[in-house]
């Protein structure tokens, strides 16, 4: 691209924004940047006017700024510490000096630079520049690579010294890994939604649901295909669900509907709480103490393969009433999942961690508190997720066999009462409530493991 401002300008003329952007565009390392980024760089660049013979900086001074030469020529003499093969170099328009500001560990100035003519230079703060580059990681990294190459090729600096700073990494958003340094809160959400809408995914998802509901409708209500005609269709279910006067007595507007939900949720909450309270410490000790594990794990493993539902009659025998057996069964299922995964979590801890802690002076209890528990957290939360799932699984089964109220009970009685749409309403409600509970566990886990969320956001450890 040809540019009208390529000719050397008379000293003293204004370096306005347009000229700065045009200059930066011709400056080799900035080539990968978009116009918008160049404008941002230009906004932090300060024009400096220098006389012939002026010293811009000299060896061992602090290196905060990078300079881009707009007009004039500058002598660049590297000091011995730079280990360059060619020490003196004359630089001119659209060349970059002062690049020490961009180096890793930020050494002091490595060179002495003197103006050979009257010069116009742009002073750009290195840290600010890096922050701007970090907004767009891909091109930003390319810029830094260009700098490193320039140092080796043009300034003959050895490779080990040419290592440039790493760009500060930002938390990635979504699978596309878009960098959103200056987006926060609402705007971030909006941005994500916009990105999502631009991809084909929402439309395919819509297509998927349309196909599913369409097929269901056609098979049951539309064409009355054999056997499918016995199932309630989507229209019937929807009408029943949202009706103020439901034919079969259960809809969004009947209090009974919420009573069933409330019963199931309360049972899940009680069972989950109990199972976590018992399962987490049990699992931690199983993993922590070999003796404890060797004594208790065989019993645990003998009882575990027995399906939870096989416990139903025994539970009814052991506990009086209808409520306690249901809670017992649900707790038992959750307990196994939680304890087992917590134990695996403790076992997954690299042996160096407890060793490191003990050689830093931590006592046995401190190792447990600061290493074993946090180290087991990721597996533990996987266990809790599974635990919620199996809790629902067992609860529904238990409610269907015995117990009163609850969604499983609702589904079962709707079957016996031949109120078929209510069965589907019950199932759908189970799905929704089940999803919400497991999402809650996931969110709680993310809250407790910020270190892991941040690590995974960077695509695993390096």
């Amino acid at each position, binding site marked *: 691209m040809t540019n009208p401002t390529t000719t050397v300008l008379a000293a003293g003329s204004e370096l306005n924004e347009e000229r700065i952007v045009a200059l930066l565009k011709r400056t080799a390392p900035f080539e990968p940047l978009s116009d918008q980024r160049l404008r941002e760089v230009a906004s932090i660049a300060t024009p400096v006017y220098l006389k012939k013979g002026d010293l811009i900086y000299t060896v061992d001074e602090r290196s905060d700024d990078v300079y881009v030469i707009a007009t004039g020529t500058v002598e660049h003499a590297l000091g011995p*510490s730079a280990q360059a093969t060619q020490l003196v170099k004359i630089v001119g328009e659209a060349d970059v000096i002062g690049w020490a500001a961009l180096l890793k*560990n930020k050494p002091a100035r490595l060179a002495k630079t003197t103006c050979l003519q009257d010069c116009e230079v742009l002073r750009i703060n290195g840290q600010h520049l890096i922050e701007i580059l970090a907004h767009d990681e891909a091109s930003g990294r390319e810029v830094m690579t260009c700098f490193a190459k320039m140092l080796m090729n043009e300034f003959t600096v050895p490779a080990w010294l040419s290592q440039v700073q790493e760009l500060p990494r930002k938390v990635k958003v979504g699978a596309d890994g878009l960098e959103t340094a200056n987006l926060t809160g609402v705007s971030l959400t909006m941005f994500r939604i916009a990105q999502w809408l631009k991809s084909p995914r929402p439309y395919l998802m819509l297509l998927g649901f349309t196909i599913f509901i369409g097929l269901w409708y056609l098979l049951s209500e539309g064409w009355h295909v054999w056997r499918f005609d016995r199932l309630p269709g989507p229209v019937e279910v929807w009408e029943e669900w949202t009706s103020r006067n439901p034919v079969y007595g259960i809809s969004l507007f009947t209090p009974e509907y919420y009573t069933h939900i409330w019963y199931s949720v309360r049972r899940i909450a009680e069972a989950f709480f109990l199972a976590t309270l018992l399962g987490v410490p049990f699992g931690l000790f199983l993993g922590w103490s070999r003796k404890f594990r060797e004594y208790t794990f065989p019993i645990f493993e003998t009882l575990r393969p027995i399906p939870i539902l096989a416990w139903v009659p025994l539970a009814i025998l052991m506990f009086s009433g209808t409520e306690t057996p249901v809670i017992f069964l649900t707790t038992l299922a959750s307990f196994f999942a939680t304890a087992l995964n917590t134990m695996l979590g403790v076992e997954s801890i690299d042996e160096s961690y407890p*060793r*490191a802690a*003990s050689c*830093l002076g931590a006592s046995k209890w401190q190792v447990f508190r600061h290493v074993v528990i946090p180290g087991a957290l990721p597996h533990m939360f996987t266990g809790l997720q599974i635990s919620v799932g199996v809790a629902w699984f067992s609860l529904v089964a238990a409610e269907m066999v015995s117990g009163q109220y609850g969604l499983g009970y609702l589904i079962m009685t709707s079957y016996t009462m031949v109120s078929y749409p209510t069965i589907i309403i019950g199932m759908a409600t189970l799905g929704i409530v089940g999803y919400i509970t497991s999402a809650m566990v996931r969110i709680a886990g993310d809250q407790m493991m910020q*270190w892991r969320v941040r690590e995974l956001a960077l695509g695993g450890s390096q």
Partner: protein
Amino acid sequence: MNAVIQSNAFEAKQRERNMNTKGTKGAIRIEKVDKVYDPEGAAVKAVDTCSLDIGAGEICMIVGPSGCGKTTLLNAIAGFHSISNGTIYLDDELLCGPDKPKAEPGPDRVVVFQNGALFPWKTNLENVAFGPIMQGTMSKKEAFEKARDMMASAGLNGSENSYPGETSSGVRRRVEIVRALMNDPKVLLLDEPYRALDSLTKSVMHEALLDIYYKNKVTIFFITHDLEEAIFLGHKVVIMTTRPCRPKKILDVDIPHPRDYNVLTSKRFRELMDETMEAVHEEAMKAFERGEKEG
């Protein structure tokens, strides 16, 4: 390009003066140590009558083929493993011996692990402050303050509040060394700490380590299988035989400290390399022929 380059004349002079006094604590004496694994059935001798003297404030580099039992020796000093025979003293105090086969791990002998053991669930700063807080020698506030200072002096400011998983492997290694030094240890035990790093980062790390050493003067027990690294860093290089592990050759590196990368191209360095290369190669071949592998 670390402080070595930035150095001004004053610092350099001070460092040279420091060099004459090696440090006063952290002498390790290993006497006829044996370690046999699995007393029933197929006994494997990992360490065989190994005797070694490491002076206070010395950088002792242990070189040997993979899986030769170097780490076993380190674990015995650190107190992670017991020994079968022999004694180990730290500053004339018994660490482990016939009546006490396993030493107690403690903050006077801090290990820097092969794959790094910064706790991923604690920020870098919390990691560095971990030791004093656990030992109860400092309040949390003091510990964090000191940790911040120490990180700053090692050029690690800016990464205090990141989690280790968010920082580069080079930074992680330095944080780990700073974490060890926070406890003012007598001995720093490093188990191939730079194994996973690329050669560029490694060279930076070497200078950073020397820099830290010049300031702190701790005894360093450094396991590696990189001979160049060993000669560049060490006062003394101990070449181990393949399993069972025993010193085969002890080399005193007479290149004066402080050293920088220029040493690598010096004549004396090359001579020392040539002198020891054969011994190392011989053991490596033995190990290879026996088909021993790590792990």
